[in-house]
C-alpha cells in the first residue's frame, strides 16, 4: 500500500480522487481487446492459446526462448513508438490534436542521415557527433511541428489539417527529391538511398550480441523530462491550462496573462522535436541510411500509443513497450497459422476500447465505487454538491 501511495503521489499529482481509474481503464481495455482477439482466432478454427503463446513468447515481454534477442528488439522498436507517442501526448495536453508525428519523424530521420554522413561532421568523435546530430534533428522536427502551430495561432487553421498536409509534404520532399536527388549516394558504390552514416554516428550498443542501443535510455530520459516539463514547470502549467480550455474556446489562461498564441507554436515545436527523435533512432540505430523506400507508420502508431497511455508520459512509456512487444512478436504468430498482421488487430481493438473508455470507466465505477456508496448517479455531480454544501 505504501508503494502504491508513493507511486500515486509521483505520477498523479497527489490527492486525485479515483486516480487508480486512470490505470485500471487502459488495463481493462487491453484485457478485453485480448479476449476479443482470442474470439476472432477461435472463430477461424485456430487455437487462441497457441497464438498468444507464440505472440508473447517472441515479444520480449515475457521470458522464453531467445529472450535476450526478443527483449532487445522489443526495446529497439518501443523507443520509436514512445518517441512519437510522447509527441502526440505533449500536443494533446495542450489541447492540440497533432497528426504530424509521421512527418516530423521523417524530417528527423532525413536530418539524422544527412548529419550522419556529411563530411565536416563525419570526422568528429562519437559523443560530439551524436550531440550535433540530435540537436539538429530536434531543431528540424521542432520547426516542422512549429509550422503547424504557427498556422493555428496566427491564421486559425486547424492543426489536424496542417499536420496531415505537412506529413505529405515531408514524405514527398524527402522520398522523391532529397533521397533520389541531392542526397543520393554515389552510384558507383551500388547503394540506393542516401549514403550510410559514419561509424561515429551509430548509436552505441548497450547489450552485447544484440542491436539494442542507447535509444531506449535516451527515450527514458526524454519521457521523464516530458513529465517534468508538463507538471513541474511554468511552461507545462500553461500548456495544461491551455489544453483544458482551448477545445472549448475558453479564455481563462489568456485573461490571466498567458500568451496562448505563442504557447501553441511552442508546444508544437516541442512535440515535433520529440517525434523527430524517433526518426533519428531508426536511422542511427537500425537502418544507418535513409533507404529509397521508407517503411513508415511510426507517427500514426504514436497516436495509438499515446491514447492507450492516457496521454501521460509514464502511460505512454508503458504503452510503447506493449506495442513494441506486439510488433516484435508479430512474425512468430505465423507458427500458429495466423497472419503476422494479427497483432495490428489487437492494437486496433485496444484503441477501440480506449475510445470507449468513458463507457468502461462508467461500468467500472458502477461496479467498484457505487456499490460501496450506494448511490445511483455519476461522480461529478456529487463532488459538486460536496463542494458547496459545506458552506
Amino acid at each position: 500500500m505504501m508503494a502504491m501511495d508513493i507511486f500515486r503521489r509521483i505520477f498523479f499529482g497527489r490527492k486525485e480522487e479515483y486516480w487508480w481509474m486512470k490505470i485500471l481503464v487502459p488495463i481493462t481495455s487491453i484485457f478485453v481487446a485480448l479476449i476479443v482477439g482470442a474470439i476472432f482466432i477461435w472463430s477461424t478454427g485456430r487455437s487462441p492459446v497457441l497464438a498468444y503463446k507464440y505472440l508473447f513468447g517472441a515479444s520480449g515481454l515475457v521470458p522464453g526462448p531467445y529472450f535476450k534477442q526478443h527483449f532487445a528488439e522489443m526495446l529497439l522498436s518501443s523507443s520509436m513508438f514512445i518517441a512519437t507517442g510522447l509527441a502526440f501526448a505533449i500536443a494533446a495536453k495542450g489541447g492540440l490534436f497533432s497528426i504530424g508525428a509521421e512527418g516530423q519523424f521523417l524530417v528527423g530521420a532525413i536530418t539524422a542521415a544527412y548529419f550522419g554522413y556529411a563530411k565536416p561532421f563525419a570526422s568528429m568523435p562519437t559523443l560530439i557527433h551524436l550531440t550535433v546530430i540530435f540537436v539538429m534533428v530536434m531543431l528540424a522536427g521542432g520547426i516542422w511541428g512549429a509550422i503547424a502551430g504557427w498556422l493555428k495561432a496566427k491564421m486559425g487553421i486547424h492543426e489536424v489539417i496542417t499536420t496531415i498536409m505537412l506529413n505529405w509534404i515531408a514524405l514527398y520532399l524527402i522520398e522523391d527529391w532529397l533521397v533520389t536527388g541531392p542526397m543520393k549516394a554515389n552510384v558507383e558504390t551500388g547503394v540506393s538511398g542516401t549514403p550510410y552514416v559514419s561509424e561515429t554516428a551509430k548509436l552505441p550498443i548497450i547489450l552485447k550480441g544484440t542491436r539494442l542501443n542507447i535509444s531506449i535510455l535516451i527515450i527514458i530520459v526524454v519521457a521523464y523530462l516530458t513529465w517534468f516539463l508538463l507538471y513541474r514547470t511554468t511552461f507545462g502549467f500553461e500548456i495544461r491550462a491551455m489544453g483544458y480550455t482551448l477545445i472549448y474556446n475558453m479564455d481563462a489562461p489568456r485573461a490571466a496573462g498567458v500568451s496562448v498564441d505563442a504557447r501553441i507554436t511552442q508546444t508544437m515545436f516541442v512535440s515535433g522535436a520529440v517525434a523527430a527523435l524517433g526518426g533519428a533512432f531508426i536511422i542511427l540505430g537500425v537502418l544507418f541510411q535513409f533507404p529509397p523506400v521508407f517503411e513508415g507508420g511510426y507517427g500514426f502508431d504514436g497516436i495509438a500509443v499515446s491514447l492507450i497511455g492516457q496521454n501521460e508520459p509514464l502511460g505512454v512509456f508503458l504503452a510503447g513497450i506493449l506495442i513494441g512487444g506486439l510488433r516484435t512478436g508479430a512474425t512468430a504468430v505465423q507458427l500458429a497459422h495466423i497472419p503476422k498482421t494479427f497483432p495490428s488487430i489487437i492494437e486496433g481493438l485496444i484503441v477501440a476500447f480506449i475510445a470507449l473508455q468513458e463507457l468502461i470507466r462508467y461500468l467500472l465505477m458502477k461496479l467498484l465505487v457505487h456499490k460501496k456508496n450506494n448511490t445511483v448517479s455519476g461522480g461529478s455531480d456529487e463532488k459538486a454538491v460536496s463542494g458547496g454544501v459545506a458552506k
Partner: protein
Amino acid sequence: MKALELKGITKQFPRVLANDHINLSIEKGEIFSIVGENGAGKSTLMKIVYGLYTPTSGEIYVFGKKVNMKSPHDAIKLKIGMVHQEFMLIPRFTVTENIVLGDEPRKGIVFDFKRAVKEIREISEKFGLKVDPLEKVANLPVGIQQRVEILKILRRGAEILIFDEPTAVLTPEETEDLFKTLRALKKDGKTILFISHKLKEVMEISDRIAVLRRGKLQGVVKKEETNERELARMMVGREVVLEIPRVKVEKGPVVLSVRDLAAKDHRGILKLKGVSFDVHAGEIVAIAGVEGNGQMELVNSLIGFTRPVKGKIVLNGEEMKLITPYNVRRKGMAYIPEDRKRRGLVLPFKIRENIIMGQHTLYPFSKGGILNDKVINEFATKQVEEFDIRPRDIYINAGNLSGGNQQKVILAREMAMKHNFLLASQPTRGLDIGAMEFVYKHLIEEKKKGIAILLISLELSEVLGLADRILVMYEGEIVGETVPEETNEEELGMMMLGIKRKERLVQ
C-alpha cells in the same frame, strides 16, 4: 389536492448530507419556490423529485400516490417535467425535431416530420408559447430556447414542472416573458416548482416559498407574509447587509485614463463609439447600462482581447501601445471577469493551480521556470482560509465548486496580484446574496486601499450602492455621468434606455 408530497427526504453523499429530512407538500396549481444559497441542496432535492437521484431515505407522493422513481423516465411517466439550467437541446436540429426527440410521431417506421410540426403548432398555440417550429435552435435567443424546453416537457404531458434556476441565463425582458408563461401555466392548472436564489424574482412569482440552508428546511412561508429581508436571513442564517455601507476615501491621482476609445465586436460591428473617462485611485467608477451596449467591447479593449479601432488607454501614466493581457497585468491591472467559468477559471484545474494562474511565472511561485509546489500550496492554503473558500481543500477541481466559491477563488487570486487598478466586470453575476455581500466587502476594502476600480454592472442597486461616480452607457456611448447622491434607479433606467441624457458634472 396535493400535487407532490415529500416526507423525510434525506440524501447522503459520500462526504456530505445534501438533504436532511425534508418535508414538503405542494398544492396542485401553485407556484412553489425553493430558495437557498448555492449548494444548499435545492438542486439535489429537485433531482430526487425528477428521479435522477434516489433518496437515501424518505418517501415521495405524487398526486397522493406513493412512488418509487428510479430514473427520469419514471418521473416523466408520473407527469413530472424539468427545465434544466443548462438546456438539453441539439443546436443543429429544428425546434420541432428537438421537441419530439425521443417520442417522435411516425408513419410506419419513418419519422413523420409534417405531423410533428403540426403537433408543435398546436401545443404552442394552446399554451401561448410562440415558437417557429422550423427554425434551427442554434439561431434562437436563449429565452426562446427555454421556451422550446418548456414545450418539450408540456408535450410529454407534464403536470408538475420543475424550473432549475431558469432566470440565470435570461435578460430582464426574457425573464418577464418567462413569468408571463409561468402565470399562464398556473392558470392552466399546472403545478410549478421554481428554484432560485434571486429573492426579488421569487417574491414576484411565487405563492409559497420554502427556504433551504445546508440541506435543512428552514421553513415554508407564504409570499404575502414575508419579505426579501426575512428570506435572506433564513437563507444565510444571519442578518444580511443588503445595503452597502458608504465609505469615503480621499480621491488620489488618475490611474486609468481612457480617451475616445472605439472598438468592434467579434463580428466586426462597431459597438464602442468613442468613450472617454478617468478613474482615480480610491474611487469606484461604475458603468451602468443594459447588456450589449458596448460594455463587453470596453472590457475587451482594456484587457487586451480586442484591438481598439481608435483612441488611447493610459494606465499609471503610461500610454498602452500594445495591449495584451500579459502587458496590462504587469502594469497593475487586476480583472474579475464577467464569465468566471470561461474567462476566470480553468475548470479541471485544482484550486491551487487556479489561484496562482497569472502569477505562476513570478517568484516565489516559480524560479527559472520551475514551479515551487511548497510555496504554491502554502499560498493556496492561506488564501483558501482568508477568503473562506469551501471546502478547504486546495486539491479540489475548480469546476466542482459552487458559483460563490468559484468567484472567491478568482478574488483570492486577483487581490493577491500586484495591482492598483481593478476591472470588475459584473462581479456578482449569478451569485447568491451571501457571496454577493462577500464581493462587495472586498471591493470596498480595495477602495480603502486606494485602488482605482472600474465596475461594470447591470444591477442598478449595485451601481448606486458602490459607485462614487456613475457613467451610463447606451449604444456604445456614455450618455450620462452622475453621482449616486443625485440620482435614482428611475433616472438611471431612463438614461440606460437612451431616453434621457445628462451632461457631465465634472471633467
